[in-house]
């Protein structure tokens, strides 16, 4: 169970990064401006810093490899995939 718990912080970190990326997404903001007058969830970031954040999603792989937590790598990748999808899909279909 130990290596699973060690993977969780990375997944949480990945979720936060994806949320930041989603909120600072220029195209998403452009669309949001069109439909809703007010939108509170917004972070303005330059495209370079967004790129940096995007690349930093790869960083957790380094400690996971060092810890030989290969199951963690697979889970991290799978979790990012589904979290990224849910972050983009849920607000538009639920709210």
């Amino acid at each position, binding site marked *: 169970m130990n290596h699973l718990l060690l993977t969780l912080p990375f997944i949480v970190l990945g979720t936060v990064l994806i949320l930041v990326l989603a909120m600072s997404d220029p195209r998403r903001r452009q669309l949001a401006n069109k439909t809703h007058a007010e939108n509170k969830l917004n972070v303005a970031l330059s495209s370079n810093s967004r790129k940096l954040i*995007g690349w930093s999603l790869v960083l957790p792989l380094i400690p996971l490899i060092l810890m030989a937590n290969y*199951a963690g790598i697979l*889970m991290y*990748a*799978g*979790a990012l*995939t589904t979290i990224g999808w849910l972050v*983009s899909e849920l607000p*538009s279909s639920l709210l």
Partner: protein
Amino acid sequence: MNENASTIRSKAKALLSLHSWSGIILGMLLYAVIFTGTVAVVADEIGEWSNSNYHQDLLLTTDVNDTVNRLVARTPKEYQEEISAYENDRQQLVYFFHTHRQNPSGVMDEFGIQYLINAKGEIISQQEGFGSDIYAQDDSYALSRFLVAIHTELHIPSPWGLILTGILGLAMLIASVSGFMMHRHLFTDMFSIRTQRNGKSLKRDSHTVAGTWSIPFAILLAFTGSFFSFATAFGLPAMAVVAFGGDQEAMNHTLVGEQQHKSDAPMASANLNGMISDSALRQSSVPAFLSISHFGTESASLLAFYMPNKGKVGFEQLVYDATNGDFVEYKPLVGTVPSAGSAILSLIYPIHFGTFAGLFSKLIWISLGVAACYVTITGLQLYAHRHEKSETSWRWFSRMCVWGFVGLPLCSLSSALGFFVSGNMSLNQTMWTQLSFVIAAIVISALTLSIKNITRLKMLLLAGNGVLCLILPFLRFTSSGIGWLQAIQHNMVAMMFIDMVLLFCSAWCFYSLYTSAQFKHKSVLVENQTLNREEVAE
């Protein structure tokens, strides 16, 4: 320059038509395979849940050595070639004493006597036959086995079912690669879903966003899936023809990595319990199954099979010399020594099944499956939406979408219903699980053909799903008498997990029924308002 642009455009067009056709022709079958694949991730949990069971680690807690010695005394010599042992979902140990033989369909199979032994070491039942036949009639696995077989071969006779699922895997590969190649704004579009004027999200955007995110895993799952199908359907026999002159047994020996020279000279075997507990200590886990070869001879050996543990993703096989009980080696999945082929194979399994870190990884793999289902569903709906302009006509394609997308889960739930009801009435659960699926399919098809309004049809089927998801946990409770308090006491995680998933699905069904009812109400209101405004303007 101009020419270049036109080739790019024609290539994009070619990719789009490839993407749509691979999706449209095989989309519904692909959905069936992906949906049941998502369910198959938790096949073990469904097995435990359907029997309200929890693993008792009988391989460690009972005297395996004593049982094997007792059973050896009453089993014909020829079946003692190999003994496999595992715990089933009804708190029994299954010992299968067998040799290897070709079954009536010409495939190498295990043949021997299967004993069911309870926790006290008493023989509950014994049965002689081919391993595949005995497993196919085992009622305790009726539900999980039925659902998994939809995923692996759509219940079409071997090898055609496997070939079909292999082709579906290739179609999924084509669809995801072509989708990836033709989408030029992959990273700019991956967070945004446009909404239509009526407040619903745009199908096309939902499709591309879900598709974009799940591309890496869609490719991996499709690739590994088609490998499994093709390798078992014709790959392995073909390899036997080319590399072993058609000798399948010789190839199996090479793949399994058996020692070449077996001595049948009798020799007392060491205590099996010692080896089992030693392996459990090394893995700090419980073996999934044991395989004891040539028990009571000079070449006796024991293999303990473990699920991945401690951050590893591959299975572990610990081999012991059963004559003296010494640990020999960690055996690779195929062959006798570690190799690239074995390493790749031991990666393919966890990547496809998602069973490398218990429920945690399974949960993630289920979500990946749901995402892939969503891509298939939105893709086909998109096609239906674009090609059926008229709202009033029969709308064959949309109708088929509702029939398949909402109908298949309902059929699967019905098979679970059949499993429990037949179990309560002590009927043949294997037969009734299948039969209830078929009956549900017939009823749903009849409804699909008879209800003219597609929205009403969809809501009806959705309500059916919601009701069944709600009923099943209670039905499980009434058939076993094991409630959640007891489950918590005994740490029955798998059972509670499935119960909760069902309740969650039920809530989701009713929620989406509620929202679509609201939506309908709202759109009527909006229509009235616009009408009013138009009247005012006039």
